[in-house]
């Protein structure tokens, strides 16, 4: 039981990741892929954040700044937070680029379903020039 209580958080994160991962690789709608991507990345961030948590610790902003020796056990591990700030930025950047691509694709094919686009590509001989 202890084992489960101490680990079930990780397992739920993994389930979340896998939901996103599943959507990324199996959905044929491109937007849905992006939704999956978002879920996946956010779940990874959740995983990282949970690495830094300590029982009985508080947010990593040092309150009593005049005290010389700060007890590190009292504060959350800030490193994963920093890493994840970067990861969030990466995530939103990727998302922005993906959305831009999505709009371009819709402009060109008038659909966002991957199978329909492939159908269009099969039916239509694209001219070999640009």
């Amino acid at each position: 039981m202890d084992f489960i209580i101490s680990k079930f958080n990780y397992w739920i994160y993994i389930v979340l990741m896998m939901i996103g991962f599943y959507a990324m690789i199996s959905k044929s709608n491109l937007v849905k892929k992006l939704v999956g991507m978002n879920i996946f990345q956010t779940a990874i961030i959740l995983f990282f954040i949970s690495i830094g948590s300590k029982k009985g610790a508080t947010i990593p902003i040092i309150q009593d700044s005049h005290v010389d020796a700060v007890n590190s056990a009292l504060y959350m591990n800030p490193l994963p937070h920093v890493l994840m700030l970067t990861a969030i930025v990466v995530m939103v950047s990727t998302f922005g680029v993906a959305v831009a691509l999505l709009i371009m694709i819709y402009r060109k094919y008038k659909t966002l379903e991957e199978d329909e686009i492939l159908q269009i590509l099969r039916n239509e001989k694209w001219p070999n020039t640009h």
Partner: protein
Amino acid sequence: MINRFENIIIQTISRLLIPPIQLYALYVIAHGHYSPGGGFQGGCILGASFILMVIAYDIKETKRMISEKINTIFISLGVIIYSGIGAVCLILGADYLDYGILNKIFSVSPAKARALGTFGVEIGVGITVMAVMVSIFLNLVSGGEHEEAQE
């Protein structure tokens, strides 16, 4: 949301809300040393205020505030500020991004100089993030049809 649609309630409330939002964003950037927040969050909020402007009014209106060209300059300005501060440290004889050396300029203790450097960097991040968010959103909603696009 590109089309101009007059909704007096939304427009009035936005007009009221946007300055405090922007002020708050600046606060978030500036107060990152002491409370949650920093360049990225502040930049996002600042960008969001412009996005709200786009939604409430329209693109042209927003463009008057922050034109495409200015925005592009801002995008690169942030990175230039960031890497520039790093380069200044390099020129002053320390390693890249070693803000401690900035005490040669500001005559404060190295720790304070580091805080100053951090602040400068946060400003850089904030500018870039704001400009990029606005730029992406404008490009998304307008489909890239700006008056400057033809150049």
